[in-house]
């Protein structure tokens, strides 16, 4: 191979450059790599394709997947099929944004820095918290980092974790806790919610934090206000993980007494993409500002007094503190934080409420409609936002049901039995603003026929 469209050096360039270096051949430049570790022969990796052939091949692979444009999605469980306003993709396709690195040189990165500052502002406004960072890998790792912050801040070793938290997030909290030598106590759900009394009973003088999710994994809105006095009386922190889109309608957790609010911004204009990349957000009360993980952008002025933005409070971070850093994280999901910012800019004060209301209304219509199917009932009588649990007849195999629903053009719900055998026959269904009444009725009819 001599020519490639990404590689500019011609044979003549190479020869001239080698001569300038004073090397006889390219091989001279690699002479310091011992012969015993040199790779001989050709890497056995997938072969190169021309651009047209590659597009055809990739389209073929993509075509084997059932996508939301062709199937009506009733699946949620942490990733949702929301409308992606067309403007979002146009903005994040500006290559000044997407081909930039972390804004280390603020003079030529004011666009990114201001966008992140606005993202932080948006997150504070939605969550009712004083400070937010530039974003995290995803909602699950943000929750794990919140537990780590709480343990560091309180100098305590125990995390009380609600079983209403997404099972993958719970697993990540446990993996992270193991690394840090923390203990995790899990409190089970009753009727789809975490009983405040059971949480209270699990809290003691060594509890760093209570970690709850609302709406929780079962779609149920948790009573955060009921947990607040108990954990605070014990001197621990209240960590809430929240779907940010629901906060267009639901009370800001900051006003319910949460000390740290985290979540995943995927519902805010970020494609599902098989679950990633998404964008975690992390917001906290002001007193924890200097303990927050990740990048933070702050406002300042330049030499001429002009407003500008910089990465700030970097004394917390790994490149300065090394092993004493608040976290090892050194990136954020900047481009996806930008998605969320553009989404929230488009939605505005009215739109965010309206989209949350549509989710609420359509999900409740669907819950009424689906629970009217013979043999199907709503599993929990608790309040919910855009997701709810259906109890199906005992004999039903949910994987089988979902395969048949797929044939009818529906991506079915989440089989709760896969995480908890006690929840066999329980189907978690999500209904966003994207679902039409016709699709909901069709889904109900399909379910009725298949049962």
């Amino acid at each position, binding site marked *: 191979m001599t020519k490639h469209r990404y590689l500019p050096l011609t044979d003549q360039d190479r020869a001239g450059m080698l001569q300038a270096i004073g090397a006889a051949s390219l091989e001279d*430049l690699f002479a310091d790599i011992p012969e015993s570790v040199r*790779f001989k022969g*050709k*890497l056995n*990796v997938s*072969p*190169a394709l021309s651009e047209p052939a*590659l597009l055809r091949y990739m389209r073929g*692979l993509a075509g084997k*997947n*059932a996508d*939301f*444009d*062709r199937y009506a999605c009733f699946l949620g469980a942490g990733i949702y099929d929301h409308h992606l306003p067309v*403007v979002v993709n146009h*903005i994040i396709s*500006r290559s000044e944004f*997407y*081909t930039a690195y972390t*804004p280390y*040189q603020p*003079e*030529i*990165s004011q*666009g*990114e820095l*201001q966008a992140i500052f*606005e993202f932080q502002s948006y997150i504070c*406004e939605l969550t009712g918290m004083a400070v937010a960072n530039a974003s995290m890998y*995803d909602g*699950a790792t943000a929750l794990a980092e919140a537990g780590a912050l709480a343990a560091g801040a309180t100098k305590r070793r125990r995390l009380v974790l609600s079983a209403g938290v997404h099972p993958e997030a719970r*697993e990540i909290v446990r993996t992270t806790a193991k*690394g840090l030598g923390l203990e995790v106590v899990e409190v089970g759900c009753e009727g789809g919610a975490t009983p405040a009394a059971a949480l209270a009973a699990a809290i003691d003088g060594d509890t760093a934090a209570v970690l709850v999710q609302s709406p929780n994994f079962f779609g149920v809105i948790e009573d955060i206000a009921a947990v607040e006095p108990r954990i605070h009386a014990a001197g621990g922190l209240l960590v809430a993980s929240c779907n940010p889109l629901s*906060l*267009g*309608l*639901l009370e*800001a957790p900051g006003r319910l007494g949460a000390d740290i609010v985290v979540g995943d911004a995927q519902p805010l204009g970020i494609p599902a*993409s*098989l679950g*990633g*990349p998404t964008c975690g957000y992390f917001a906290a009360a002001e007193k924890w500002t200097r303990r927050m993980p990740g*990048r933070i952008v702050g*406002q*300042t002025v330049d030499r001429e007094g002009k407003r*500008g*933005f910089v990465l700030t409070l970097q004394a917390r971070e790994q*490149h*300065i503190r090394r*092993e004493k850093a608040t976290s090892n994280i*050194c990136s954020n999901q900047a481009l996806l934080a930008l998605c969320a*910012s553009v989404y929230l800019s488009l939605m505005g*004060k009215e*739109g*965010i409420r309206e989209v949350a209301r549509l989710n609420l*209304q359509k999900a409740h219509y669907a819950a009424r409609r689906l629970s009217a199917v013979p043999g199907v009932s709503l599993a929990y009588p608790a309040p919910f936002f855009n997701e709810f649990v259906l109890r199906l007849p005992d004999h039903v195999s949910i994987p089988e049901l979902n*395969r048949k629903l*797929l044939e009818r053009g529906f*991506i079915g719900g989440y089989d709760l039995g896969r995480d908890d055998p006690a929840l066999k026959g329980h189907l978690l269904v999500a209904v966003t603003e994207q679902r039409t*009444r016709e699709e909901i009725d069709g889904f109900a009819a399909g379910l009725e026929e298949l049962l």
Partner: protein
Amino acid sequence: MKETTVTGNKTTGAAQEAAQQTQQNRPAGTVVQPLIFELSRPGRSAYSLPECDVPEEKDDSLVPAAYLRKRPAELPEVYEVDVIRHYTALSRKNFGVDNGFYPLGSCTMKYNPKINEDVARFPGFAKIHPYQPEESMQGALELLYNLQRDLAEITGMDRVTLQPAAGAHGEWTGLMMIRAYHESRGEKRTKVIVPDSAHGTNPASAAAAGFETVTIPSDSRGLVDLAALEAAAGPETAALMLTNPNTLGLFEENITEIARIVHEAGGLLYYDGANANAIMGITRPGDMGFDVVHLNLHKTMSTPHGGGGPGAGPVGVKEHLAPFLPRPTVARRDDGSFYLDFGGAESIGRVKAFYGNFGILVRAYTYIRTLGPEGLKRVSENAVLNANYMLKRLAPYYEVPFNRPCKHEFVLSGSRQKKRGVRTLDIAKRLLDFGYHPPTIYFPLIVDECMMIEPTETESKETLDGFIDVMIRIAGEAEENPEHVKNAPYTTIVKRLDETLAARKPVLNCSCGG
């Protein structure tokens, strides 16, 4: 929301200035762009949502009023053109690889191919759900499977997890596997050895995985000091974390000896893949003796940095660490179908929700398929050639702490210019005036006034020469007119920013809701 609700002392001055400048109709890019919140006018909207086609009920009949928001979130009220112009204006105040040369050492700011972007946006990749039935995501699983296999081949490892979201996340994942490996053998090893030239993430990741860090010095040639390593390695050693080529851009020539020392002490070798752009098809971590390796796909595999993320940090391991891989990985059945393999009881568990940053993995696989084995090797050759060419041409003008062939990057010291009162930071700022992104500065910590330069293979000789000429010019300015360099930049939309003020009195959001 009115501008006056943008709390007075924080932003009003800037808002007024912004408004005035807008009125004066100055060219975009030179004005302070108002915050999106400052553009808000009650009654404007930029959204388009579907009709509510289901019978509606009152919100508080569905959800108890106590759970509902008492006060709406104070988001801005703007229309679609405002949004487009606002973010377009912001984009014009930002510098990416598409804007120009970006020789940021250890970050591998190569060209981000456009086909990667198009492919990742195919609905069959962008609009799919991680929990949909396996048979309805066979194309995605096939792609992940192929990528696992290709990355294993490139690194010389046996198995790969694609789950970690970034390099630092990969480091932590690898260290958690190393910890689980030692524990499974009934050994409690608590220390991770890290050279003083290592990335700051190495010790931070070690701490997050519950290890203590032992830092060892580099020798006068910029390489691991073998005697120091020998002294540090022992029964408590869990692992050595090493970047190779190291952060000075130098290949650790004694790598087999290093591996022997660590392995004989019972420790494992961790490869920080930040610098893998130098080695594809030339040498492999697995063949050097490494047990675990992470790759930064946003460096070596051309996926865009996105202004700070998202990236992806897959981890490869040798067979003896395979049982500890995070779950799930992707496997292939005899009938050719693909499935998610949730592993055994020894897995360290999950490290990230779902299956990793799939959208980034699609881009990386697309990249591999544009180059193939010969192309990838050519990438590394040209990256190394470009770096050596720059080093050679710049050597007369800047101090070269380690004067021998480098790999894909090299370091210079601004110590000569420092004697004239010009710091490396000043040189970096002066480069901005010529339309270049500066190199990484003040890293590695072991080189005084360090500049770490990584050109990558996607830059032409003309681009390199242009940058070199400017660096030579700045070296001359440092001699003849140091003040001129110290006051740079002159042409950027803001001048040097007051970082002390930002940290001392943090203003971290616009307090729009009061």
